[in-house]
């Protein structure tokens, strides 16, 4: 496969060049966050307070890794289902977040925000968690340590395998991929 190599941080300009269906290898640093951390971030915004992380040009990986065993930076670390972050994501995209990594469908509000501001939704392969963990070279807690595995971490990643699921023009591999397969088998049946 010919993957596109991308260096992070991810600017809006670069984000806008990516197209649904492209396979990429990401290198650089990313943040992690799941439901509980997102809830806290949005609460801060609601109170008019600053965020503990600057999300501009950043990528958030929806993940709650397993504990690291000796000799590893992280334990197994595949994506969690993204829709649980849908009610929070548009606010962060508005603030400059350019990428999200997860798995599963997103709602229209997220897609609209991605189109408006220029952001990408990447997919990592659910259940390929041991392989993905090998591409994470360093991990440190940034904030919300009390949340354990759900704390916001900064990961240093190298050649992290991902697929562009939804692009900044609304192109959606979850729609076009299955439709293309169905069209192919229908053609053959005729």
């Amino acid at each position, binding site marked *: *496969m010919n993957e596109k190599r991308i260096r992070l941080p991810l600017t809006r300009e670069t984000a806008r060049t990516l197209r649904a*269906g492209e*396979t990429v290898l990401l290198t650089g640093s990313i943040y992690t966050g799941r439901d509980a951390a997102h809830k806290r971030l949005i609460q801060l915004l609601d109170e008019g307070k600053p965020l503990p992380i600057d999300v501009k040009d950043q990528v958030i990986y929806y*993940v*709650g*890794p*397993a*504990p*690291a*065993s000796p000799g*590893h930076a992280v*334990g*197994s*670390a*595949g994506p*969690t*289902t993204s*829709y649980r972050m849908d009610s929070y994501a548009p606010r962060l995209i508005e603030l400059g977040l350019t990428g999200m990594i997860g*798995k*599963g*469908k997103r709602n229209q509000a997220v897609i609209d925000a991605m189109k408006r501001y220029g952001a990408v939704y990447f*997919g990592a*392969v*659910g*259940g*390929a*968690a*041991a*392989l*993905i*963990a*090998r591409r994470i070279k360093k991990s440190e807690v940034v904030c919300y340590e009390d949340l*354990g*595995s759900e704390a916001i971490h900064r990961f240093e990643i190298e050649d992290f*395998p991902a*697929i562009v*699921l939804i692009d900044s023009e609304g192109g959606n*591999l*979850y729609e*076009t*991929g*299955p*439709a*293309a*397969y*169905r069209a*192919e*088998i229908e053609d053959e049946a005729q």
Partner: protein
Amino acid sequence: MREIPSSVIREAAVRLIYEASYRIGPDIEAAIRAGIGRERSAAARGVLEQIAESYEIARAESVAICQDTGMAVFFFEIGQEVHIIGPFEEAVNDAVREAYRDGYLRKSVVAEPMFERVNTGDNTPAVIHMRLVPGDRIHILFTPKGFGSENMSRIRMFPPAAGVEGMKRFVIETVAEAGPNPCPPVIVGVGVGGTFEQAALTAKRMTARPVGSHNADPRYAALEDELLAAINRLGVGPAGIGGATTALAVNIDYRPTHIAGMPVAVNMCCHCARHAETTL
């Protein structure tokens, strides 16, 4: 009467947790590899290759196949001639506590579901299902369950008139609507009949039936094949990005039910359908 100390149950449970969490079943791994040959798109093949490679890494390094190491679900079949010495549930929960801590498995359980949602910190309590059977042995099946796929599961209380067609439509619809969320390729556990809770429990038990096996009743076996083919025509594909391999298996079982009903439960399970069993 055969005496089995609860410590023996605890030790067996610890071993099962490690085995299930690090080593995918050969039936599932073979089905994933077979899928690679069937996919036409490089991206779909790439997904299956990543999954197969990840299984290998997990096994070689004794790390979790998936970071969501699930709620710890156990099915016990206890021979009625067994006398367990010592507290049974405590032994099982101790096993969970020990294995999830020492095995670097994620703790994913909150004590109360609506108000505080505070993590119990040790992945307890286990979910324990039990049946008393003849004999003097104990059979343990451990089948941890992640919630990416658990959340996509459904149950419906059909009227009998819904029949086979109603059941088929419901199963296919459930998989189609789940789409990429439950980490396809999936294993679809289906329980038909019984009561509300029995249908669900039967469906759960079916997620641990080996890929490639069939129901002993030829009518149900034929339904399994038919539904698997129909689901794989949906095109959801590996990781939901489009392709031939949406499900690896549809495993169906039934229970006697009431004259007025036909419950159908669909328990969705990801390709990481982890399970391990032993007999004491």
